[in-house]
Every structure is written in structure tokens, then in C-alpha cells.
């Protein structure tokens, strides 16, 4: 690949991000001007806690996605192991596909009644639980191919060497699965981070995540704030992607 093609490709990939960044600091952009007429950081000052409260949305989204990804990854890792070694493995695994037979929004509509009764409607806990309905089965499906007879034998070996089930997890299974756990965590974080329909329906606007704010600004045709929110929306996944590459891919890949 020539140097020019490389630069062109990188430029092509980076253009949408650069464009969003430019829009976020722009004001007054009448047609046919190539660039906005005014440049200001006032939109970004909103992040630090203006009336728009975008800073709170960032914190809320980070907290929600980290919680969802952590809970789902841990829980699905443990449950998938039990499913993998169960005599009726296929039947249990097919249940994990159930939430994906419907769209997440339809699933949310089905769950709505129960969330109202439980007092979880329009709460942070409600949205977290609702997102788990999507991310937990995804995690189970993700880890279903991870477990095999070799790992099972290793687990048995730990026991005959005197280890408890907890020690088998802590000293062998989790370290061996480190790469898979990180990848699953990253994917589940992204699912939660960009989730819109289910969050909107169960949160009823009272849990304003960053993704909801982007849609809100787009609906209001506020392109400058929408661009700013989009920039913020991209930052955490990019940071996580960098961390994933730095931690997982530099380390030894283990079976």
C-alpha cells in the first residue's frame, strides 16, 4: 500500500470524527460557507455543568454502562459455564437467544408492566435491569464457545490438587479467560452505551443517557449540540478500545 493511499484511508476514517469536532465548536454556519462563521468553546462549557447538564449525562452513561458490562460479564461467565456442562446444554442456550427474537423495544414493552409494578419504571435501577435482559444473554452466547473439555479437566485438576471451586475460578479459570473476559466486557459496554429504545421506554426520559441526549438534539435540529454530544459519545468507547488493545492484545493469548 502506497503512502498516499495510507494517508487517504486514515483521512477517510478520521473525517467523520474531525467533522463532528468542528461542528461542536462551530456557530452560525449558513449555506454555502465551507466552515462555520464563528468558532466558540461555549458548547463545550455546557459539559462542565450548564443548564443542558451534559456532564451529568456523561457520568450517568459511564456509570450505567460500566455497571451493566461488569454485572453481565461476571454473571454470564459463571452461568455459561454451568450451561456448557449441562446435559441439556442446547435447550438452555436456545433460551439465551430469546431476547434477540424480538427487538429490544418490543422486549421492553413486554416488560413494562412488571417494571411499573416493581416501582422500577423511570429509575436508574430499572434501566440497568432492563439492559441486563439484553446484555446477559449476549454474554452467555459469547462464552458458550469458550468452555471445553480441556478447561473442565483443568478445573478438576485444581480440585484434586486441593483447590476449592473459588480457587479454581480465581487462580485458573479467570486468568485463562482474561482475554475473553476483556473482549466481552468491551462489547457489552458498547451495547449498553449506544442502547436507545429500551433505555428510552423504561427510563421514560428520567434517565437521560448521552445516547438519548444525542437523539434529543437531533430531533430538535440542534446540530451543534448534537455534534458535541456525539463527540462525547465516541470518547469512552475509543478509550476502552485503546485499553483493550493495550491490555489484551499485548499479552500472551491463552486458550
Amino acid at each position, binding site marked *: 500500500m502506497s503512502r498516499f493511499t495510507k494517508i487517504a484511508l486514515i483521512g477517510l476514517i478520521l473525517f467523520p470524527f474531525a467533522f463532528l469536532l468542528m461542528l461542536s465548536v462551530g456557530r452560525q454556519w449558513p449555506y454555502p460557507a465551507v466552515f462555520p462563521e464563528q468558532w466558540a468553546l461555549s458548547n463545550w462549557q455546557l459539559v462542565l455543568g450548564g443548564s443542558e447538564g451534559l456532564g451529568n449525562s456523561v457520568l450517568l452513561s459511564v456509570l450505567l454502562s460500566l455497571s451493566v458490562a461488569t454485572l453481565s460479564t461476571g454473571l454470564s461467565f459463571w452461568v455459561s459455564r454451568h450451561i456448557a456442562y449441562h446435559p441439556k446444554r442446547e435447550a438452555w442456550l436456545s433460551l439465551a437467544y430469546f431476547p434477540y427474537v424480538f427487538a429490544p423495544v418490543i422486549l421492553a414493552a413486554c416488560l413494562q408492566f412488571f417494571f411499573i409494578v416493581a416501582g422500577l419504571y423511570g429509575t436508574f435501577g430499572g434501566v440497568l435491569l432492563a439492559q441486563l435482559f439484553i446484555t446477559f444473554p449476549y454474554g452467555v452466547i459469547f462464552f458458550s464457545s469458550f468452555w471445553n473439555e480441556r478447561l473442565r479437566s483443568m478445573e478438576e485438576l485444581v480440585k*484434586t490438587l*486441593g*483447590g476449592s471451586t473459588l480457587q479454581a475460578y480465581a487462580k*485458573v479459570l479467570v486468568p485463562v479467560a482474561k482475554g475473553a473476559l476483556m473482549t466481552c466486557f468491551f462489547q457489552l459496554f458498547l451495547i449498553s452505551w449506544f442502547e436507545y429504545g429500551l433505555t428510552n421506554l423504561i427510563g421514560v426520559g428520567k434517565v437521560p443517557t448521552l445516547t438519548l441526549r444525542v437523539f434529543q438534539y437531533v430531533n430538535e435540529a440542534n446540530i451543534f449540540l448534537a455534534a458535541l454530544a456525539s463527540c462525547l459519545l465516541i470518547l469512552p468507547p475509543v478509550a476502552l478500545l485503546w485499553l483493550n488493545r493495550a491490555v489484551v492484545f499485548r499479552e*500472551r493469548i491463552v486458550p
Partner: protein
Amino acid sequence: MLDIKNINKQYKGEAVLQDLSFTLQAHEMLSILGRSGSGKTTLLKILAGLETADRGQLLLDGQDLSPVPANQRGIVYLYQEALLFPHLDVFENVAFGLRLRHRPETEIKKKVNALLQRLELPEQARKMPEQLSGGQRQRVAFGRALIIEPRVLLLDEPFGALDTETRRSMQQLLKRVAKDLGLTAIFVTHDLKEAMLMGDRLGMMQNGQLKIYGSRAEFIADESTGAREEARFWIDLHDLKLTK
């Protein structure tokens, strides 16, 4: 002493082990010869506590093992594959059992280094499992089992995946270490020669039943072990060479 009385095990209505009884004296190695599917692995897994018997009694030095979980039996089960922990180096793989028991660092270093020396692995201490040969991996697996001084060691065709030369040297090494450390062990194999070489006593497993032989001669005399057939083959081959 390990005392096994009338062990029975069924899978989906099919008997895998039938009224199996035998005793294993302390510091003795029992070789069990048997074809695939004869129930050898099931027997070892029941002894290790990884599976449960439908009926029967397991006594180790007079203690009933049935209610004792696998991690408290002191019986280590070794697989055909070395199953070294891929995230740990050779030293840490061998030290694994001691770390589980939270032993002091000085004791761990002393014991592991001594064992690595005995297993001819001192140069490999800081290598990762994928940097080792098949024979070296199996030696590390032995070290990992021996470091905790197991009451009984169960070996399920441990040399099955090794080439002939490595297999021979591993047999000699295990025999020597077993003698030095006074191991109590059951060695399961489908290789006739290996069974005869490794065992102080010999047994033959067929259709879920185990026959223990009183002596080597008795084992050879039994047609079902295949020892006589094997001997005849080599004698015939030898005669054929002489006539040519």
C-alpha cells in the same frame, strides 16, 4: 492402604463398573491394563472424587472416602495431557498446590527447586508451558502433583501422547521417582509393555471388571492379557531372522 469394595457404576443403564474390588498397599504401584471404554478412567475419577459410584465402598487408611470432596482426599488425578496452566511458568505450575495451601515463600522455593532438580528441570524454571517439549510438560505435571505429597497418585495413560523415545525415558524417570519418594499409585494404560514395566502388581480391566494378578507369571499366563501373544510374536520374528 486403599481398599475398594464392590464398586458399581452405570451410565444410561449400561454398567461401566461391576462389583469392582481390590486393595492397593502403601508405596505400591498398581498397573491396570485395559482397552478404551473398559471403565479405567471412570474408576480413577471415582477414586479421585470427580465422579460418584452408584454402590460400593472406598476406604483410604480406614477412612471412608465417599463423603470426602475431591479437594480434601489428597488423591491427585493426572490426565494423558499435561494440562499445565498456560498463564503460569514452570516454577509457578509446580508451586501451584503449595500456593493453594498458602505455604510460606521460603518453603515453596526450597521444595519447588528441589523437585525441579529431581525431575531434571532446573533450567526450565522460568519458561512458559508453550516453550516446553511434550516430555518436559509431562515432567512439570508430575512435579505439580508430587509437590503436595499426595496420598495416592492416579495416572491415566500419562505417556499416551508422547513419542517412543520420550515415553521410554519418562517411564524410567517415573519409576525412579516413585521408588525414591515411596509413591502409592495406580497407573492405567492400554500398552502391555508399559503396564508390565511400571507396575509392582498388575491388573486387567475388561467390561467393567478388574482382575488383579498375584504375580507377573500369572499375568503372562492369562491369554486375555495378550502377553503370551506378544511374546510369541517376538519369538517368531526372532526365529524368522535366524532362519534367514
